[in-house]
């Protein structure tokens, strides 16, 4: 009936301006896909080497009244520090290498959806030791409980989309 390919958004808008007129090669789908893979690989390597693919490490950090495990603090600290410096270098360049512009969040409000959502996420994180990145990065060591978590997480994303499109 209707084709849903990656370009359907552009194809469906009649007055679409063509932002990729100047450098079609650098912005080609292949280059973007390769760039996405590199980003995912670096992220997955980072999670694996830091031990964040182990829920016990994460729960050990969250267990401030028990045998506290500081590893996550070091991970988050160095990740934020690296990103803080790197973002400034990247933004100073004015535009991304393989895309027309930076797509940054524009919302400002500290509303109930943000804070309520964060609270629900925190409870799920505390129950399992999994946030979305480590859960997906751990697919190589899949088990029935992890599969259940991933399936329920995807269901949660669909429900959130329905509640608030």
């Amino acid at each position, binding site marked *: 009936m209707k084709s*849903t390919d990656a370009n*359907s*958004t552009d194809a469906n808008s009649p007055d679409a301006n063509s932002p990729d007129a100047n450098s079609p090669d650098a912005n080609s789908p292949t280059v973007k*896909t390769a*760039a996405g893979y590199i*980003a995912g690989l670096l992220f*997955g*390597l*980072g*999670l*694996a080497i830091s*031990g*964040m*693919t*182990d829920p016990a*490490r994460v*729960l*050990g950090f*969250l267990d*401030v*009244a028990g045998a506290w495990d500081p590893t996550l603090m070091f*991970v*988050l600290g*160095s*990740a934020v520090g*690296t*990103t*803080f410096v*790197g*973002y400034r270098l*990247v933004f100073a360049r004015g535009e*991304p290498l*393989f*895309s*027309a512009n*930076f797509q940054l*969040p524009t919302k400002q*409000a*500290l509303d109930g959806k943000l804070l309520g*959502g*964060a609270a629900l*996420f*925190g409870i*799920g*994180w*505390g129950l*399992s*030791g999994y*946030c*979305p*990145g480590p*859960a*997906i990065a751990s697919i*190589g060591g899949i*088990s029935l409980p*992890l599969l259940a978590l991933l399936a329920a*997480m995807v269901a*949660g994303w669909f429900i*959130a*989309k329905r509640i608030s499109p």
Partner: protein
Amino acid sequence: MDWMASLQGLVGGVLIGLSAVWLMGALGRIAGISGIIGNLITQRPKGDSAWRLAFVVGLVSGPLLVMAMGGGLGNVAGAPGVVIGSPAGGVPLMLIAGLLVGLGTGLGSGCTSGHGVCGLARLSPRSMAATGVFLLTAIATVYVMRHVIGGGV
């Protein structure tokens, strides 16, 4: 304190930061896992599927590569060298937790990476608030599970 584990945490964190910087510098996007993968799965009409899917493949292949290299670069607690740890509970607990993680990151527009890494690095007030809330509720949840109920993990 386990200094080797902390050192690996620092190194891994730098790699995660480099991933975030690269994704912004190359494609102009926030490296938020729940946003990238949630949108890959739920967004209609589909858009940006190729690089998002490639990101997921990269994310899954990272730990596999570390396992394939051998050399004990994993950092699982109490099992030096092991790369991927075991879930801390059975299927019922993981179903509840997964639903809350999906629903919460969907409604709250981000998770530990989008708010916790990228958002804090941008000094975003929304991300600072979200990170504070999910850290506190996670700490409270672990406290209740381990020290109040006691039958927890």
